[in-house]
């Protein structure tokens, strides 16, 4: 699972929607892999305004990466390739292959196997 997806994913539990403790889900015991993907500058320019930068900083730090700047960079038509590539690498190429994500509000643990998070709830949580 990509960090891009983590940046938009929320707890499945209805009671957690909109609560600040529920987002981002806390990543633990993560195994990472790099999946090489073609650079998509137009897509990055489209998506970056929607990325919650603070949540991305939290997630990358949970993975031991402290390299991102405190402020969200601005992407323009002239943005240099180095910036595009570093965002592309963090958001789209970094994959969590195994691990778990925990909701800070209800405490539900979402396991990740083979890159796929299990977002199902138990019947009592629905």
């Amino acid at each position, binding site marked *: 699972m*990509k960090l891009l997806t983590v940046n938009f*994913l929320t707890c*499945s539990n209805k009671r957690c929607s909109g609560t600040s403790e529920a987002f981002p889900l806390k990543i633990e015991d993560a195994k990472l892999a790099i*999946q090489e993907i073609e650079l998509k500058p137009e*897509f990055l320019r*489209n998506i970056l305004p929607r990325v919650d930068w603070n949540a991305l900083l939290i997630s990358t730090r949970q993975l031991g990466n402290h390299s991102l700047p405190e402020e969200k960079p601005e992407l323009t038509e002239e943005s240099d390739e180095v910036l595009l590539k570093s965002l592309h690498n963090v958001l789209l190429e970094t994959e969590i292959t195994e691990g778990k994500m925990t909701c800070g509000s209800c405490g539900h643990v979402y396991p990740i196997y083979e890159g796929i*998070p*299990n*977002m199902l709830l138990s019947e009592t949580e629905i």
Partner: protein
Amino acid sequence: MSRPEHIAPPEIFYNDEEAGKYNTNTRIQSIQAEMTERAIELLDPEGPSLLLDIGSGSGISSSIAESFGHVAVGMDISPSMLSVALESQDVEGDMLLADMGNGVPFRAGTFDGVISISAIQWLLNADKTCNVPQRRLNRFFETLYSSMKRGGRAVMQYYPESDRSQQMILDTAKKCGFAGGIVVDHPESKRQKKFYLILQAGGMRAL
């Protein structure tokens, strides 16, 4: 032909054997591919978009969306289908094991657009005692609406069982804030007839 949603819930029906058919049956594959291309045509996204693929199954629809330059996030309730997708398709986007009837677990305004191929008819199944179709429909459309960018569009090909179920789906979507309607392709042919529910999440874009 009996409808699969009458045989068992999707996570049971799409076991390894049924899911494998999606990988080996070229007729199923070509129909799925054709419907996906039509859905993307109806979606008409502006540039490379972040798309949600509901009931992404074996990954055919997500990989086609990616071939058009989009990034897809798939969700499916069948682990067997997701394994098929992992093994056979070169899907670059993410997939989630999730139940659409329990909502779309993404924060507000995440997706530029949504596609779904042959999935949402499953919402009307009351296959467990905790499954109340109307409640699942409400939860699905409510969270779907929220997860989309204003002005975003969802195109969902599905197999309506009856006029009543079709009305129930459309009414619920509208109650949750969507505008939209149904496009029927090949209405004259019983075999090729295809239904596409097209929903607009706010905004002024004409259908």
